[in-house]
């Protein structure tokens, strides 16, 4: 399984440096959590991998493929899926349109609504996701259901890398369990899973490795067995 590598990645917004000299590798079949205070640069790091932002310096590679200058279209083609903190859903559109957002199935150049509907139903069923309606605007679903749509969309095309930015933020306790189970199953399938979460309980429940980000720099990078919740909290907070 190919590795995802970042080498000396730097990202600036205007004059402020948001990511500094980030060098890190992610291996398949592992769950890596990125933790850090608000504004530490977690979302920016993930969006840079996903091609929404481009690094000002440094390189990003997935196996032999250079991702540094690619946009979200190409990174998705390469098998990188991201679940965005704000979910990146089209709220007035139905579930099917959101699942196939940017990857609509066509037949003779025309949308193949039937195939998309059937496939979507099958995928949602295997994921154990229950939604009241596939034709209702996504904005009318509950927060947890919207999150389920975003997760299903990320998994629909069997990605190699899954980046999840606060995927449990809007979920109820039972739904969180469900999502953590899913993460474990994806790991077993050999995916590279990157998880951002504020909830250290979740982080410790599923991660193999924990990276602490502070002011755009990696200040700790340890296997979950070599660290503890107290240590991580201290690393997040210490000035």
């Amino acid at each position, binding site marked *: 399984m190919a590795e995802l590598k970042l080498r000396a990645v730097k990202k600036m917004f205007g004059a402020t440096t948001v990511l500094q000299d980030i060098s890190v590798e992610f291996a398949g079949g592992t769950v890596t959590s990125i933790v850090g205070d608000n504004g530490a640069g977690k979302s920016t790091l993930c969006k840079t991998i*996903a091609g*929404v932002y481009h690094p000002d310096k440094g390189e990003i590679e997935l196996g032999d493929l250079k991702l540094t200058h690619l*946009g*979200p*279209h*190409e*990174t*998705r*083609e390469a098998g990188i899926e*991201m679940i*965005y903190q*704000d979910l*990146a*859903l*089209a*709220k*007035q*559109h139905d579930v099917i*349109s959101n699942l196939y*957002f*940017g990857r*609509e199935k*066509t037949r003779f*150049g*025309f*949308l193949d609504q039937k195939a998309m509907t059937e496939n979507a139903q099958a995928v949602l069923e295997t994921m154990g996701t229950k939604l009241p309606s596939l*034709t209702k605007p996504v904005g009318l679903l509950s927060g947890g259901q919207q999150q389920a749509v975003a997760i299903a969309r990320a998994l629909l095309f069997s990605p190699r890398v899954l980046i999840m930015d606060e995927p449990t933020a809007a979920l109820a306790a039972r739904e969180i369990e469900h999502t953590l189970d899913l993460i474990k199953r994806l790991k077993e399938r050999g995916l590279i899973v990157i998880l951002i979460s504020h909830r250290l309980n979740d982080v410790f429940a599923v991660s193999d490795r924990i990276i602490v980000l502070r002011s755009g720099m990696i200040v700790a990078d340890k296997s979950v067995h070599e660290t503890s919740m107290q240590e991580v909290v201290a690393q997040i907070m210490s000035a």
Partner: protein
Amino acid sequence: MFAKEFLRDINKTSLLQCIVFLLAMCLFFALNSSAFISPINLCNILTASSVIGLMAVGATFVIASGCIDLAAASIMALSSVTCAWAAQNLHYDGLALVGIAVATGALCGLTSGFLINFTKAPSFIITLGMLSISRALAFILTGGIPIYGLEERVTKIAEMQWFGLSLPALIMLGGMLVGYLLLTRTRFGAHSLLLGDSQAASEAMGLRVPLLRLAIFVLAGCFSGLAGFIFMARTNSGDPSAGMNYELTVITAVVLGGANLFGGRATIFGTLAGVLCLGVLQNGLNLMAISTFYQTLFIGIVLILASLLRRFGPNNG
């Protein structure tokens, strides 16, 4: 094939209110004027709506994508001028003239789209600029005097009829059909609506937003150009002052049809219904010999009434 999606559109937008409104108006005019309901008059309504209708198809895509095109009517006027000029000086006719008009519109749309992408300014501002520029070009090209007296082979285009419908009406309905297929059956149409729903999500999901927006404005330009051709054929002139204020009429029609002015939701059924609402209103008031001052007043009232009705519909938004 249409029936199922028609029902879905009714569910999804305020189309139902628009249709109820349309039927109510038809009933009102039918009771007040015996001429209204005659087949010839109904065909006249379609013919009279053809210029607005074609522009409205393009505007549906622009509005679906979360933009506004204030230049549509000026581009239509400029296209009517270039088209009439080509008819008079190059002795083009038929499809070649359509080509000139559509190319003029496409070029203007391309410019608007490019400038919106390049400056990242709101489409409202850029197309307001293009409104002035294309109108001015039309005046400069003609020296302010409409190009009249086109050869008969050009003017007879507007008089051709099939199945009792004039060619302009048929072209408008054809344009609606093309717009319908593009909007509901192609990735281009789906992406236009998705872009209008959330630009950030569209970018994150890998839609090529600048290219998409460019295509949308080129398409709208093509429809304005085609409308310019129809205008020229119907009035027998290339008129730089053609369709003053039509840009707002077009937006009114699309919004009447249930489209979300801020993007993400629009249907061609709705646009057709909106165009017909305005066409019926104008025709009915004409038949009742009510002055045009009042017609403008009524258009305003209709738009506001329709917005009120929408609050009590299946989805109020």
